C-alpha cells in the first residue's frame, strides 16, 4: 500500500468506475421493478376471479394513442440528452419540453380512462378484484409518471434559467434512466392489462 496524493475524481475516472448517480438509479430501478412485479403478479393471479362486476373484456379499451405518446417520450428524452452532450442546449431544452408534454398527455389519457370507467361503468377500486388490481397497478404506474414529470419540470425550469449545461449531463442521464424505466414498466403493464388480460 502506498500513499499517492492524486485527487479523488481523477483516480475514479481513470479507473473506469461507474458514476455513482447511475449506480444509485440502477439500484432504485431494481427495487421499483420488484414492487411492480408484485402488483403485476397480483393482477395476473386475480384475472377471472372477480365474483361480480364488470370484467376487463367488457370495459377496457386499449389506450393506443396515449401509449404511443409515452413511448415516444422515451425517444425525445434520449435525444435531448444526446444534444446536451454535444452542448446544443436549445435542442436539448426543446426536446425536453416535448417529453414533458408527451408525459402529461399520457397522464391526461389515464385520467380520461378512469373517468370513463368510474362514471360510465361503475368500476372503482372497491367494486371487485379486477377494480382493485387494475387501479392499483395502473395507479402505481401513474404515480411514478407524475413523480418523473415533477422532476422533468424542475429541470425544465432550471434549463430555461440557463442552469443546465454539459456539466450536468450525468444528472440528466440519470433522470433519463428513470424515465426509460417508467416507460418500460408501461410496456409490461399495457401487455398484462390490455392484451393478456382481455
Amino acid at each position, binding site marked *: 500500500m502506498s500513499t499517492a496524493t492524486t485527487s479523488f475524481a481523477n483516480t475514479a475516472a481513470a479507473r473506469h468506475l461507474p458514476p455513482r448517480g447511475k449506480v444509485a438509479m440502477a439500484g432504485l430501478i431494481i*427495487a421499483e421493478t420488484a414492487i411492480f412485479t408484485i402488483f403485476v403478479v397480483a393482477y395476473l393471479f386475480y384475472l377471472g376471479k372477480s365474483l361480480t362486476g364488470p370484467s376487463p373484456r367488457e370495459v377496457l379499451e386499449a389506450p393506443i394513442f396515449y401509449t404511443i405518446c409515452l413511448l415516444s417520450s422515451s425517444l425525445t428524452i434520449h435525444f435531448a440528452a444526446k444534444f446536451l452532450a454535444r452542448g446544443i442546449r436549445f435542442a436539448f431544452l426543446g426536446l425536453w419540453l416535448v417529453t414533458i408534454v408527451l408525459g402529461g398527455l399520457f397522464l391526461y389519457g389515464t385520467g380520461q380512462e378512469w373517468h370513463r370507467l368510474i362514471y360510465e361503468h361503475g368500476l372503482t377500486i372497491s367494486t371487485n378484484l379486477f377494480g382493485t388490481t387494475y387501479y392499483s397497478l395502473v395507479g402505481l404506474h401513474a404515480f411514478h409518471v407524475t413523480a418523473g414529470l415533477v422532476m422533468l419540470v424542475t429541470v425544465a425550469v432550471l434549463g430555461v434559467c440557463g442552469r443546465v449545461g454539459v456539466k450536468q449531463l450525468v444528472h440528466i442521464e440519470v433522470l433519463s434512466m428513470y424515465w426509460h424505466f417508467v416507460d418500460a414498466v408501461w410496456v409490461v403493464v399495457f401487455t398484462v392489462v390490455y392484451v393478456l388480460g382481455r
Partner: protein
Amino acid sequence: MSSDAITIPALEVQEKPWVDLLHEWVTTVDHKRLGILYIVYALVFLMLGGVEALIIRIQLVHSHNDFVSPEVFNRMFTMHGTTMIFFVAMPILFGFANYLVPLMIGARDMAFPRLNAFSFWLSALGGFLLYFSFLGGSGLYGAGSAPDVGWWSYAPLTAHAFSPGHSSDYWTLALLVSGFGSIGTAINILATILCLRCPGMKLNRMPLLVWLNLVMAGMVLIAITPLSAAQIMLLIDRYLGGHFFDAQAGGSAVLWMHFFWIFGHPEVYVLIIPCFAFMSEIIPVFSRKPIFGYPVMVAATVCIAFVSMSVWAHHMFTIGMNSYANSFFTLTTMAVGVPTGIKIFNWIGTMWGGRIQFKTPMLFSIGFLFQFLIAGLTGIMMAASPFDWQLSLSYFVVAHFHYVIVGGILFALFAAFYYWYPKMTGRMLSERLGKWHFWLFLIGFHLTFDVMHILGLLGMPRRIYTYEPGRGWDTLNFVITIGAFIQALAILVFAANLVISYFKGARAGNDPWDAWTLEWSVSSPPPAYNFATVPTVASRRPLWDLKHPEDPDSRYE
C-alpha cells in the same frame, strides 16, 4: 511506508456546549456518526424487545398463568418479533455497514451522505411510529393498542373485521417507512462499493465484509420491496375498500403469505450475511491466518443470495400446497444449505493450522460457529416438509430461528462489538467483563433454546398465551424462562461494559488487534475525513503487506 494520519499537536480546546453537540449529531451526514446513531438506536430497541421477551417468558413459566391478559400477551409477541427484526437487527447491521464500508475501501464517506442521514431518520421514524401504537392504536375487539396480529400480519386477521382500530396500521406504516429507509441505505451501500473504492482495490481485493455487504445491499433491493408492495395492498384493502386479501370478494389469504415470505425469507439472509461478514474478518485475525478460500466465500455468498430467493414457501408447507410444490421447496431449501455449510467449513479451515487467540471477539465467533451449525441442521430438518408438518408453527421452529438470530446473529454482533468498539471509541472493552458476558450469555442461551426444541417435539404450538397443565410442558417452560433471565443478566453486563469502558477502558491505538484491513491504518477513532491521503492497495490485506514486506500477500494473489 508512512502512516496515513496527519498528526495535529494537542491544542487547548473548550468544551462544546451540549446543545451544539446534540445539533451536530442530529444534523450529521458523516457515515461514522450515522453508523453509531444506528447502533445506539438499535441497542435501545434491543432493550425494549428484550423486556417484551421477558414478559412472554414470565407468562409462560407455568401453565394457566395470568401474569398478563391474552390481549397483552398477543401484543407482546407481535411487538417482540417486529422490533427485533426491523428495529434491532436491520439498523444495527446497517450501522456497522455504514461505519466500516467506507473505511475498508479507503473512501472518505458513503456515496450519498445526505441520503444516508435521510435513510437513518426514516428508519428512526418507523420505530417511533411502531411504539406510538401503544398510545394510539386499538386492536382486536378493541382489546388494546399495539398491533397484536403477529409480526407476519397474516390476512385476514388484518382485515377491518378482525382488527378494528389502528393497531395494524401502525405496524404497516412503521414498516413501510423504515422499509424505504432501508432501500435508501442499500442503494447507498451499492453505489459506495461500486464507485468509491480506492486505487488498487479491484473487486477481488475487497475485504469480505465489503463483498458481503454488497450482496446484502443487492438483496435488500429485491427482498424488502415485496413487503412494501404487500403493505400498500393492505392499506388499499383497509382504507380504499380494496379486496386484495378479502376472502368475501374472492381475495386470497394465501397471496399475502406468498408476498410476505418472498420478503421474509430473503430478509433472514439479509440479516445473516453481514454477520458472515463479521466472522470473515474476525476469525482470520484471531487465528492469525487469512480467510480460507476467499473466492469460494464470495461465490458461496452470491449463490446463497440467488438460491434464497427460491425457498420462501418452506414457511408455507402447512397451507396445503400440492405435493409437487412442497417437493420443489424442499429441494431448494435443502440446496441453500450447501453454500451455507461451505462457509462454516471455510471458517474452520481458517482456524486450522492457525494460532488462535481466545480474546472475547473470538469466543463469540466460536460460539457462532457452534450455534450456526446446529441452527443450519435444524433448518435442514424442517426443510423435509413432512417433518415440517409437525414442527412448523411449534416451539421447534421458534427454537430454530432464535438459534439463528440469537445464537448466530447476536453472537456475531457481540464479536463485532468487541472487535470494532476500540476503533469507534478509542477504548478497549474490558476483557474481564467480556468473558463474564460471554459465559453467562452462553449458558442462558443454551438453557433456553436447547430445551425449547423439545417443547416443539412435544407438540406445543407457538403464539399461545397459556397452555394446559396435562401436556408435559411445565418444567421445560420453567427452565426456558430461567435461561431468559440469565441472558438478560448477561446483556446488562454487556451494557455496563459498553458504558464503563467508554470512560475507563484502556486506550486503543490504531491497531489493537494486529489486523490487516484499512480501517486499522487510521487512528481510533478515525478523523472525520478518514484518510489524510487516498490509500492505494495491492492485495486483500494491505496492512499485512506493510507489516510483512518480505512476504506480502500481493505475491500470492
